[in-house]
């Protein structure tokens, strides 16, 4: 958990029987007993303690609100997180459940450029078995899962901070070919999973297929970094690096998958060693460029007006803890968690109708219901960076293991790598020159027309949009190389000459200084 230092505003105000809000229809109001507001890294948290009155029914409530506007703050983004297993073993299909704090940590480990500021639980899920989500799950453009019900919308989050709620259009399994930077070189439709391809097509075998793929077919063996699937042959996901090509009979090893080519299939030079191959559902339309996506359920607010016309849904009329996501007209995204099932503590929980009223109270233009009950959780990062604070009072009395979650994160957005034409006739950028390290910061000269660079530290690449990068303060010997990130007009450059750097302890630094002093000596 990285450090979050800035509390911009803390406001504590206590009201006694103050009438604060009355909905447009005058059927709903909130009587606030106390309200606490904090703003951290541009994310506003508010806790309201009081009672609500919906059409004459009064109930005691504790309401938690977390909001930010990623359309105006380029350092705030909405990220969907999970802690699914990387492979199908040991969890069936590769799914899993974890509490929201672990999921938040996973977000920070996946994206070094992001720090979690706060978040809430996400989609409904298979709580009794695998933990797989109910609806689509999109992580950093990877379509991990298309969902099972196909009846609920998906919240999609774009790089520009805007949010969409809609049904994605999935057009079938596709092999996405990417270079080592994740730039898409091309896509090839997949005929089928765990079966032989058409004569001019491809199929993909995963490691859950326990028989040999016959010889006579070219097979691209891919070392997987992640797989996920269920019992449907069109709900498979795999990502990995092309390891080798063989024609012999082959049984897929654990943590690998194999792309099998039909007799007349020709990739036209598209697939090369070192490429990343992604098996996923192809998505078109509005969701083609959403970086993250998560399933949502009932619509609560539309055009700023609470909805009250449901006939089916998640225990619509029951008072329960609830979680919801809303978007305001100005692009502000906000989450609400209402505590429940703790009557004696003034946390009765709300019905769907009341939740919709609350989302409208917070000026949602559109809002949707998320998983609730014991799953309803809201966290924020601890101000001293020691972890996360659970802001609400989960009804299980502890953090429940959930499938996925939605977070506000702070940090620099790494733009999606530009697609690569095939054949690639773009000229290549020059590598950055003048690489050196001073006071823990790597510097290099800018390259004309470049917008970003990759800094490789002992083979691990880091993105930077400037001509500098802060060196991790960890003892070790480092080989630092820099390359210029490609654009639509230029290919990514080769690496610069390596720069070798020793990050030493203070004692060793002193000893090095001693020998530096020796080098300054002259004979008498």
């Amino acid at each position, binding site marked *: 958990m990285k450090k979050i230092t800035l509390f911009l505003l803390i406001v504590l105000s206590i009201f006694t029987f103050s009438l604060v809000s009355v909905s447009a229809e005058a059927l709903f109001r909130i009587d606030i007993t106390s309200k606490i507001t904090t703003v951290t890294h541009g994310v506003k948290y508010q806790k309201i303690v009081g009672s609500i009155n919906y059409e004459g029914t009064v109930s005691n409530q504790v309401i938690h609100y977390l909001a930010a506007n990623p359309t105006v703050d380029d350092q705030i983004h909405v990220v969907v997180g999970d802690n699914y297993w990387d492979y199908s073993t040991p969890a069936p299909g590769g799914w899993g459940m974890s509490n929201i704090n672990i999921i938040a940590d996973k977000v920070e480990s996946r994206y070094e450029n992001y720090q979690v500021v706060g978040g809430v639980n996400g989609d409904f899920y298979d709580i009794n078995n695998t933990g797989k989500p109910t609806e689509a799950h999109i992580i950093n453009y990877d379509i991990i899962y298309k969902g099972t019900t196909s009846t609920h919308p998906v919240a999609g989050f774009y790089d520009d901070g805007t949010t969409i709620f809609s049904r994605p259009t999935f057009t079938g399994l596709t092999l996405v070919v990417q270079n080592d930077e994740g730039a898409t070189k091309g896509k090839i439709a997949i005929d089928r999973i765990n079966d032989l391809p058409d004569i001019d097509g491809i199929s993909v075998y995963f490691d859950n297929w326990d028989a040999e793929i016959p010889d006579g077919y070219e097979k691209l063996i891919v070392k997987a970094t992640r797989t996920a699937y269920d019992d449907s042959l069109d709900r498979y996901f795999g990502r990995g690096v092309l390891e080798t090509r063989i024609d012999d009979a082959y049984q897929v090893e654990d943590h690998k998958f194999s792309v099998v080519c039909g007799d007349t299939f020709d990739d036209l030079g598209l697939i090369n060693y070192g490429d990343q191959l992604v098996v996923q559902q192809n998505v078109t339309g509005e969701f083609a460029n959403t970086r993250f996506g998560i399933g949502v359920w009932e619509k609560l607010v539309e055009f700023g007006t609470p909805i009250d016309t449901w006939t089916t849904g998640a225990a619509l009329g029951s008072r329960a803890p609830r979680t919801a996501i809303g978007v305001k007209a100005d692009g502000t995204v906000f989450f609400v968690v209402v505590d429940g099932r703790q009557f004696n503590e003034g946390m009765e929980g709300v019905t769907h109708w009341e939740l919709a009223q609350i989302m409208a109270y917070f000026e949602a233009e559109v809002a949707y219901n998320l998983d609730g009950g014991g799953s309803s959780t809201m966290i924020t990062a601890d101000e001293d960076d020691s972890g996360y604070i659970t802001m609400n009072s989960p009804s299980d009395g502890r953090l429940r293991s959930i499938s996925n979650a939605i977070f506000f994160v702070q940090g620099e957005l790494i733009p999606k790598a530009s697609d690569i034409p095939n054949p690639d006739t773009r000229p290549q950028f020059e590598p950055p*020159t*003048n*690489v*050196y*390290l*001073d006071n823990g910061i790597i*510097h*290099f*000269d800018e390259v004309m027309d470049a917008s970003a660079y990759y800094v490789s530290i002992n083979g691990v690449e880091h993105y930077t949009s400037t001509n500098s990068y802060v060196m991790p303060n960890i*003892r*070790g*010997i480092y080989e630092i190389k820099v390359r210029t990130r490609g654009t639509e007009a230029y290919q990514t450059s080769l690496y610069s000459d*390596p*720069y*070798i*750097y*020793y990050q*030493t*302890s203070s*004692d*060793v630094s*002193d*000893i*090095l*200084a*001693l*020998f*530096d*002093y*020796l*080098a*300054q*000596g*002259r*004979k*008498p």
Partner: protein
Amino acid sequence: MKKIFLSMLLLFIATFLIACQNEEIPGSTPTVTINSVGSTFESEMIITIEAVNADVIYFSYDGTTFSEYTNALLITETTTVYAKAENENGMSDVINATFTKVISCTGTLVDGVCITGQAEKLYLSMADLSETDQFQISISIDDGDMITAANIIYDGNLSSFSVGSSMVIYQDLDGILLSYTKQGNTFIESDLGATTNHLFFLNFNYDQFTYANDLYLLNYGQYDTINSFVIELIPDGTASNFAITLTDDVIASMNFDIQVDLAIYHTEMIFSYEPIDIVVPIIEGGNNA
């Protein structure tokens, strides 16, 4: 006949002169001579002094303070002997003769001491190092988890220090030390003031070491040289286990530990003598431009 006469005359003259030497000649001052078997010796030499027509003979070892000569002199070191004699007519001239002690040494004579074997090798290798203007030292510092490597190059009035890709060049320009710190493709020049001498390894003497198991171990009680260097930048540091190795009669390495608090850092300096020319960067507006 003339030849016979001439021979007779010469014999007479010679006989007269000899007679005159051995007999006091009334009215003349004495003459003195210093006698020995030669002018060099290995361990000791007996010197005698003789005088003609003398009442008293004097000798001196410094030409200033004279004592009466009564017995032969015994010398064991290289010595200059002065002598004079006296009678009633006066004092003779002061004469002197130097007798040089010659030491038979199959090794190397150092301040009158003949050193041989491993001590001689160490002495000669130290002497070679002190006369060498171009050499390198590859340094490694082992903290138990990680080995940090550095390199020093000496090239006359130039030197350099590098760790990984970082490097600084030093130039002694008329007693002023300039540094050129590498930053990418450029160098930053700085004036470090007067050049100083702190090549600690040139201050060792061969007799501070004991040879054992191919190592020259710095004797206990001889750590002032290295410790005074260490504490210049590491006040809490102390050196121990200092050892020198030779290869082909030149100094190959110096190894020692530096202890800082409870931590011990094994430090190795590997010497090599392939000349490497350091090129001083030309900096616009700099001292070297």
